């Protein structure tokens, strides 16, 4: 009885917290199908908001900017960062620690300060192109996340592999490409995913470092006062949730299979 009561309270608490976390987004999604302009007043079902979403150039532009900046900056940061990690790993301890510490700056720095420092640099040298400014800013704040997700994998793998490849006649470039990179692939992939999602979500750094070219966050900030099309929340929410659920369900299923497997082995014993 006591146990049941405990379970009931635990479930209720977790449920309430989930409601707290999801209610605002879900309510926006529900009302993105509402004819009325004001929230809380249901006047009928419509797809109008969605039609409007795709015929508002500001929004479609911001969507394209967000996605392309995320894609390009995460790939560039992954390439630069992976090479950097390989290089750092091979350096002398003192040099490596110095560079690692500097690399942590964008992670330690408040976003606000990173954004402003980049803004000052761009203004100082008179560089105006808004899109490139966004790209540079995003690559810069993505780099440490890639480096620090690749470095641990390099530490786990053995230097011998690289040397064996050289002994067997690879050039250093070939050895990196054919031996080292496959070995540290999980680190590279998680760095890439992290960089992509961070870039999708960024507001503060983009706001200061950018110049006239808006990503979605900047668009939402700029139009918060007159109201943002509620359909935007569906467009952002549904893909993210689906993607995360697919990725996680797969790993959960694998885990469960592994568990079942080990149980079977136990029973055979």
């Amino acid at each position, binding site marked *: 009885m006591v146990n049941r009561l405990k379970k009931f309270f*635990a479930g209720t608490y*977790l449920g309430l*917290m*989930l409601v707290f*976390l*999801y*209610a*605002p*987004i879900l309510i*926006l999604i529900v009302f993105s199908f509402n004819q009325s302009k*004001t*929230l809380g007043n249901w006047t009928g079902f419509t797809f109008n908001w969605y039609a409007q979403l795709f015929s508002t150039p500001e929004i479609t532009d911001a969507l394209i900017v967000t996605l392309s900046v995320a894609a390009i900056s995460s790939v560039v940061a992954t390439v630069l960062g992976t*090479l950097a*990690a*390989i*290089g*750092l790993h*091979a350096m002398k301890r003192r*040099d490596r620690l110095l*560079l690692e510490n*500097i*690399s942590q*700056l964008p992670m*330690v*720095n*408040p*976003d*606000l*300060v*990173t954004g*402003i*420092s980049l803004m*000052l*640099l761009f203004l100082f040298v008179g560089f105006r192109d808004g899109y490139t400014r966004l790209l*540079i800013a995003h*690559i*810069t704040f993505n*780099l440490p996340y890639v*480096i620090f997700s690749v470095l641990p994998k390099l530490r786990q793998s053995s230097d011998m592999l*690289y*040397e064996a490849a*050289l002994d067997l006649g690879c050039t*250093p470039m070939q050895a990196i490409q054919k031996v080292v990179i496959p070995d540290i692939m999980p680190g590279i992939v998680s760095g890439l995913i992290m960089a992509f*999602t961070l870039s999708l*979500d960024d*507001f503060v750094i983009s706001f200061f470092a950018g110049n006239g070219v808006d990503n*979605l*966050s900047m668009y*939402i*900030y700029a139009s918060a006062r007159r109201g*943002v099309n509620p359909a*935007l*929340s569906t467009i*952002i929410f549904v893909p*993210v949730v689906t993607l*995360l659920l697919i990725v*996680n369900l797969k*790993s*959960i299923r694998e885990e469960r299979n592994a*568990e079942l497997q080990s149980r079977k082995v136990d029973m055979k014993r």
Partner: protein
Amino acid sequence: MKRTDVKKQKSMTGMHIRRSLFAFPYIVWMAVFILSPMLLILYYAFTSEGGATLENIVQAANWDNMRVLLDSVRFALYTTVLCLLLGYPIAYLLSRMKKTTAALLSVFFIVPMWMNFLLRTYAWKVLLGAFTKILYTEAAVLLGMVYNFLPFMILPIYTTLIKLDKSYIEAAADLGANPATTFLRVVLPLSMSGIISGVTMVFIPSTTTFAISQLLGGGKTMLYGDLIYMKFITEQSWNAGSALSIILLVFVLLSMTFMKKAERKTSDEGGGRLW
């Protein structure tokens, strides 16, 4: 064995020079886009019309600005405490569930972290405006901050708690501790490292937050981030803005050092108490 070692040493030194070259493009990038912008902030903070001066810092540290900083710290503290009070039970309950259920449920608690924080904050603005009277009050700002930072508290505590060896809890029960004592004397001390990293992940970003207060506070609540924004964007005063940024940076670094120290201390104490 010896011979291969010697050979390894030789080939390593040869390779080290070449392999470390892979970091070269990044080092250039870092110098241009990480170091030089920071140096620019320092430059603007400590110069005025070309001459070196402490004037900017002294002026930025005036009573009005420091009151805004204190206000931000107060908000950040409230946010951190609320996130801890709400988040710890979530992490604890999740960690006591069956592994696969917990894995799935924890995803739902983490997903909001991956969603555009501005859109989520905007959603609250609409919601609070339509259904309550608290929009554009301090309560709304606090709500928005707790909402945005809660997952950052849950995640580190949850990861510490699932790693916690269940036999400690059983041992405590076997030795006669009731559940409350077990929790206070065993589980809580052992999860201290998760609590501290959660507190760090919530407290520091919420001190420097920007935009939440503008969206939900309606400009009535001025936080330190808004102050820096005002100096740079509205007043175009780079020297004053840079000086404020430097003060913020020093504050953040100090609190991080403090947290690191606390973490080291608790990990010692946790071990001490247990044995």
